[in-house]
C-alpha cells in the first residue's frame, strides 16, 4: 500500500472509515505469490473490512485475480505456485498447515466470470454443497435452504415453478445468480467474485450489482472487475493493482474522485501507459 492511511481533510466525512480502520475480516500481510520463478504478486499488505464490498481493479495481468484466488487458496490447484506471507481470516492464517482447505472454501465462497452451473437441475445445483458438506438433516430442511439461497440471490421468483428443470436452460444472468445462490447455500462468511458480470448484458449486470449491494449486509464481498464504473457503483473500498503491486487502496469515492497516486489517477482517467 502506498503511503499511510489518508489524513482526514477539511470536508471528509469522518464517519466513513478508511480501509485501514478497525478490525479487518481479512488481513493480508506481506503476501507474495510465484508462478514458478515469476513473482506475480509483490509484498501485498491490505486489510478487508467485514460487511463491505471491496473491489480490485487494474489492467489485465496486474495480479488482481491471482490475489483474489489467494484468499481461499484457489491457486493451490495450480502446479509450481508458491505463496509467501500471510492471509488471516478472522485472525486465522489460511495457509497454516492444519487448515482444511475444503472447509476454508466453504467459508470463503467464489463466483467466477463465466457462470458454471452443474449439468443438473436448478434445485440440485443449489443443494449440491449442502449434500457434500452434510449441512441439512432432511428433505424439508434442504428444500428450505435451497429456497432461502435462491431468494437471497434474487432468483427464486423466476425459478420457483421449475426447480427440477435443467440449470443449463436458464439465461446467462440467471445462471450467474444461480451460481451465487449455490455459493450462498453453504453459508459462507466471505464471497469472492471474479468479474461476475463481465459476460452479461447491462440489465443482467444491473441485477448482479443490486444483488451485491443487498448481500453485503450479511457477507464480506470482494469483487474483481475490469469495469471501473462497476467498481465505483458497487464497492465501498477499492484497491488498484499494477504489475503485481498494490498501488493504492482507499475508500471508493476517493479513489475515483481524488486518488493520491499518479498511477491510479492515470488508470482511472484512461491515460494509462
Amino acid at each position, binding site marked *: 500500500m502506498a503511503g499511510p492511511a489518508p489524513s482526514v481533510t477539511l470536508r471528509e466525512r469522518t464517519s466513513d472509515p478508511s480501509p485501514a480502520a478497525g478490525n479487518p475480516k481479512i488481513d493480508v500481510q506481506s503476501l507474495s505469490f510465484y508462478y514458478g520463478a515469476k513473482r506475480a504478486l509483490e509484498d501485498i499488505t491490505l486489510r478487508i473490512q467485514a460487511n463491505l464490498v471491496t473491489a480490485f481493479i487494474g489492467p489485465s495481468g496486474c495480479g488482481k485475480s491471482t490475489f483474489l484466488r489467494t484468499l481461499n487458496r484457489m491457486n493451490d490447484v495450480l502446479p509450481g505456485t508458491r505463496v509467501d506471507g500471510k492471509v488471516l481470516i478472522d485472525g486465522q492464517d489460511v495457509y497454516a498447515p492444519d487448515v482444511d482447505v475444503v472447509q476454508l472454501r466453504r467459508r470463503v465462497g467464489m463466483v467466477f466470470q463465466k457462470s458454471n452451473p452443474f449439468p443438473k437441475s436448478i434445485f440440485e445445483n443449489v443443494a449440491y454443497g449442502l449434500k457434500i458438506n452434510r449441512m441439512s438433516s432432511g428433505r424439508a430442511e434442504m428444500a428450505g435452504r435451497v429456497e432461502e439461497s435462491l431468494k437471497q440471490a434474487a432468483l427464486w421468483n423466476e425459478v420457483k415453478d421449475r426447480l427440477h428443470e435443467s440449470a443449463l436452460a436458464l439465461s446467462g444472468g440467471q445462471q450467474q445468480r444461480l451460481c451465487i445462490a449455490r455459493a450462498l447455500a453453504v453459508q459462507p462468511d466471505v464471497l469472492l467474485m471474479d468479474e461476475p458480470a463481465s459476460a452479461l448484458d447491462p440489465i443482467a449486470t444491473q441485477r448482479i450489482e443490486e444483488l451485491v449491494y443487498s448481500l453485503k449486509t450479511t457477507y464480506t464481498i470482494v469483487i474483481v472487475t475490469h469495469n471501473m464504473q462497476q467498481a465505483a457503483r458497487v464497492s465501498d473500498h477499492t484497491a488498484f493493482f499494477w504489475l503485481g503491486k498494490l498501488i493504492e487502496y482507499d475508500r471508493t469515492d476517493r479513489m475515483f*474522485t481524488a486518488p493520491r497516486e499518479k498511477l491510479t489517477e492515470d488508470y482511472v482517467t484512461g491515460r494509462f501507459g
Partner: protein
Amino acid sequence: MDRSVRHFEEELGTLQTRLLEMGGLAEERVRASVHGLVARDLEITDRVLHGDEPINQLHVEIDERCFRLLALYQPMATDLRGIVAAVKINSDLERVGDLAVNIAEAARRYAMHPPVKQLIDIPRMGEIAQEMLHDALDSYVRRDTALARSVLRCDDELDGLKTQVFRELLTYMLQDASTIEPSLDLILVSRHLERIGDHATNIAEDVIFMVSAQDVRHHAPQVE
C-alpha cells in the same frame, strides 16, 4: 482506448477555451458597465444592456458540452473534478454577465441625475472585481492554486469598500434628499460589484477543488 482519450482531451481543451471566451466576455462587460457609469456614457451603457446574447449562448453551449462529456465518457478523478468545476464556473460567469447588466441599468438611471460626487471607490471596486475575475480564470487555465487563494483574500477588500461607499453616500442622502435616488443607484452598483467578487471567489474555490481535490468553501481560516 488511446484514441478515445485523445478525443476526450480535445473535448476538454475546447471546453476550457469556451469557458475562457465566456470569462473574457464577462470581464469586458463588467469593465464597460463601470466605465459607462463613471463616464456617464449612455452609448456604452446601452451596449452592455443589449449585449447579453453571446454570454447566454455560451452559457447553454458550455452546459451542454459538460453534460455530453459526463454522459459519454463517465470521467473520473481530475477529469471529473474539472468538468464539475466547469459547470459551476459557467453559472458563476453567467451571473457576472447579469450583474454587469444590473450595473448598466443603474448607470443609465444615475446619468439622469446630476452627479452626487466624484466617483473614486466604485471604480476602484470595479478594478478589484475585474482583477479577481481575471486572476480566478488565470488560475483555472494555469491550475494555479496559489493564485486562486490570492483571489479569496481580495474579497475582504471589496467588502470593505462596499461598506465605505454605503456610509459615505448615507451622509450625502442625509444632507440633501435630492441625492437619495442617484445615491441608491450607486449603493446598488457597489452591491453588484461586491457580488461579482463573490462569484470570482466561487471560481477560485472551484479551481482549488479541481486541482487539489480540496474543498475550501465556507472555511475562510483555511485560506490564510
